[in-house]
C-alpha cells in the first residue's frame, strides 16, 4: 500500500506536485493518469525517495521507503528503462542490484528467463532496443518478489506482443495481492488494465475513483443521428434543450437528449432518420474533459499566462490523438 499525504514538490518556481493525497491499495491495478508534464514521474520519484518532497509525506506500508528493511522485497520499480549503465551486461546489471538486498544469485538468471532476455544476458545493455530495456527494467523490479510494483509508462517502446505481455503481468501481479501502480498518458491503456484510477493534472489530484465511476461521472452519452434533414433536426433538438453538432454533411452528434427523445422528436416532425446510434463514452474523452477543466482552472491563477494553458490543452489533445492512433495501430 502506498499512502501519500499532502505531497508537494517545487522545483524553483515550478510547482511539479501540488498537495497530493491518495492511497494505492493492494490487490488491484491502479492507473496513474495525466497528460505529459502533469507530475506523474515526479510523484513516483518522491515515493522512492529519489527526490525529497518540499512538504508532505509518502509511505510504503506505513514506512518511508528509506526505512524499509529490504527495499527490493518491498518495492520493485521501473521508472526509466534507460536508467542503466550501458556498458554493463544484463546479467551483471541485475547481479549488482540483487547483491544490495542479499537476494539469491540464482534469481538473476531466472528473472532474465522470465522476461525473455536469457539469450542476451551476457550482452552489454547499450545495444538493447527500448523494448528490451523495458524488459530488463521489469526483471530488476521483480527480482525481490516485491509487495509493491511501480511502472512509469511501461508500454512505451514495446511491440504489440510485449504490450499484451506486460498487461497480463500487471493483472497477474495484482491478482496475487500485490499493489500495482502504473502511470500512463494513454487513456486507452488504462481502460484495458486498471481497475482504479488516480488522475492528476498540473500536479493536482483531479480524480481518485474506479475506472467505471470515472467514465460515468465525466462523460455524457453522445448519440449519432444520420438524417437528410440534419439542419431542421438540429434546430428542434436545440429547442428541446439538447445540443447538436454537425458530424459530416448529413449527420449530427447530439448530447443532453436521450435516444428515445430524439427518435420521438424526429417521428413527430416527420424527419427521416437513417441511423440512430449511441457512441460509448471512452476513457479518452472523459480524460480530455477532465484535464481540460484543470487546465482552465490553472489558467486563472495569477502569474500563469493563459498562453501556457492553451499550449497545454493542445498538448493534451495531441496526447489523446497519439493515444488513439497507437490504439488503432494495434
Amino acid at each position, binding site marked *: 500500500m502506498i499512502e501519500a499525504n499532502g505531497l508537494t514538490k517545487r522545483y524553483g518556481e515550478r510547482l511539479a506536485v501540488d498537495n497530493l493525497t491518495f492511497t494505492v491499495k493492494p490487490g488491484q491495478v491502479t492507473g496513474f493518469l495525466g497528460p505529459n508534464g502533469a507530475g506523474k514521474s515526479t510523484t513516483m520519484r518522491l515515493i522512492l525517495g529519489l527526490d525529497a518532497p518540499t512538504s508532505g509525506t509518502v509511505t510504503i506500508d506505513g514506512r518511508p521507503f528509506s526505512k524499509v528493511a529490504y527495499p527490493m522485497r518491498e518495492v520493485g520499480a521501473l521508472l*526509466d528503462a534507460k536508467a542503466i549503465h550501458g556498458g554493463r551486461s544484463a546479467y551483471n546489471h541485475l547481479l549488482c542490484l540483487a547483491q*544490495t538486498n542479499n537476494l539469491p544469485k540464482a534469481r538473476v538468471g531466472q528473472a532474465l528467463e522470465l522476461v525473455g532476455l536469457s539469450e542476451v544476458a551476457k550482452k552489454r545493455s547499450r545495444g538493447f532496443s527500448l523494448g528490451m530495456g523495458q524488459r530488463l527494467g521489469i526483471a530488476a523490479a*521483480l527480482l525481490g518478489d516485491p509487495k509493491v510494483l511501480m511502472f512509469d509508462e511501461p508500454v512505451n517502446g514495446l511491440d504489440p506482443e510485449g504490450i499484451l505481455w506486460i498487461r497480463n503481468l500487471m493483472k497477474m501481479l495484482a491478482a496475487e495481492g500485490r499493489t500495482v501502480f502504473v502511470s500512463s498518458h494513454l487513456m486507452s491503456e488504462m481502460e484495458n488494465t486498471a481497475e482504479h484510477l488516480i488522475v492528476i493534472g498540473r500536479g493536482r489530484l483531479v480524480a481518485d475513483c474506479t475506472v467505471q465511476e470515472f467514465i460515468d461521472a465525466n462523460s455524457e452519452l453522445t448519440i449519432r443521428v444520420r438524417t437528410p434533414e440534419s439542419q431542421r433536426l438540429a434546430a428542434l433538438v436545440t429547442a428541446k434543450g439538447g445540443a447538436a453538432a454537425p458530424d459530416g454533411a448529413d449527420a449530427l452528434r447530439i448530447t443532453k437528449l436521450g435516444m428515445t427523445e430524439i427518435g420521438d422528436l424526429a417521428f413527430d416532425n416527420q424527419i427521416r432518420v437513417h441511423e440512430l446510434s449511441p457512441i460509448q463514452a471512452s476513457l479518452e474523452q472523459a480524460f480530455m474533459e477532465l484535464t481540460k477543466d484543470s487546465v482552465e482552472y490553472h489558467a486563472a491563477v495569477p502569474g500563469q499566462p493563459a498562453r501556457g494553458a492553451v499550449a497545454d490543452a493542445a498538448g493534451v489533445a495531441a496526447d489523446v490523438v497519439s493515444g488513439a492512433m497507437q490504439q488503432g495501430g494495434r
Partner: protein
Amino acid sequence: MTTNTSALGGLTALPPASGRAGFGGALRSEWTKIRSVRSTMWTLGSATVVTIGISVLGNWGRANHGDATAAQLAHEDLTQRSLFGIILGQLIMVVFGAMAITSEYSTGMIRTSLTAQPRRASVFWSKLLVVSAVAFVVGEVISFVSFLIDSSFWRAKGVDLTLSSPHAMQAVVGGGLYLAGSAILAFGLGAILRHTAGAITSGVGLLFVLTILVNFLPQSWQNHLDKWLPFNSGGQVWSTQHVPGTDLGAWTGFGVFLIYGIVAVALGGYVFRTRDA
C-alpha cells in the same frame, strides 16, 4: 511454494528476511559494478602502462646515456626519479576515480541504484571503499614494478639502490598511496559535480595545472604557497629527500594531500545524501 501460473513462477524462493539490507550487500554490489564495466579496465590498464612505461623509458635513457658518475648519482633522489611516471599516472587515476561515480549520473544508473538501496550513505561509502581499495592495489603494483625495473638500471650503473636503501620503501609504498589519493580526490569531486568532464577537469586542475600556475606568482609568494599544493605536498610521500623549510616531510605532506581528498569526499558525501538524485 509458487506455482508456474503465478507471475513470478520459476524463480528460486527467497530466504526468510532477517536483519536489513546494509553495508555488506552494498560492498558486494559496488565490487560487481566496478569489475563489470570496460572503463575500469581501460583506465587502470592505461594508468599502469603509461606510468611504468614513462618511468622505465626515462630512467633507462638517463642511466645509459647520462654523463653523471655513480658518486654524483648517489646524491640524487633516484627513488623518486624511478617513480616519476606518476606525474602522468595520477591524471589517469583521476579519470578512474571520477568516473566511478559520475558514470552513475551520466547513465541514469544512480536512480536504479538508489531504488534498490535508498539508504544513500551505504551506497556512497561502499562505493568509495571499493574505488579506494582498487586504486590502492593497482597503485602499489604500478609503484613497485616501476621501482624494481628502474632501480636495476641504476644498479647496473654502480649505484646501490634497492628497497632497503634509506627511505626507499616509504617512497615506493607512498607512490601507490599517492595514486590512490588522487582517485579519492577525484571521486569526491565527482560526487560534488555529478559530471564526468567537470570532475576530471577540476581534478587535473588541482593536481597539475595549479602546480604550474603557481610558478607565475612572485617568488616570495611561491615560497609560502608551493609546499601546500596537492601535488607538492602529496609528492613528498614518494620522495626520499626533502628540502627543509621548502618541503613538508613525507608523511606530513601526505597528510596535507589527504586533507584535500577528505574535504572533497565529505562535501561529495553531503551532496550525495541530500540532493535529489
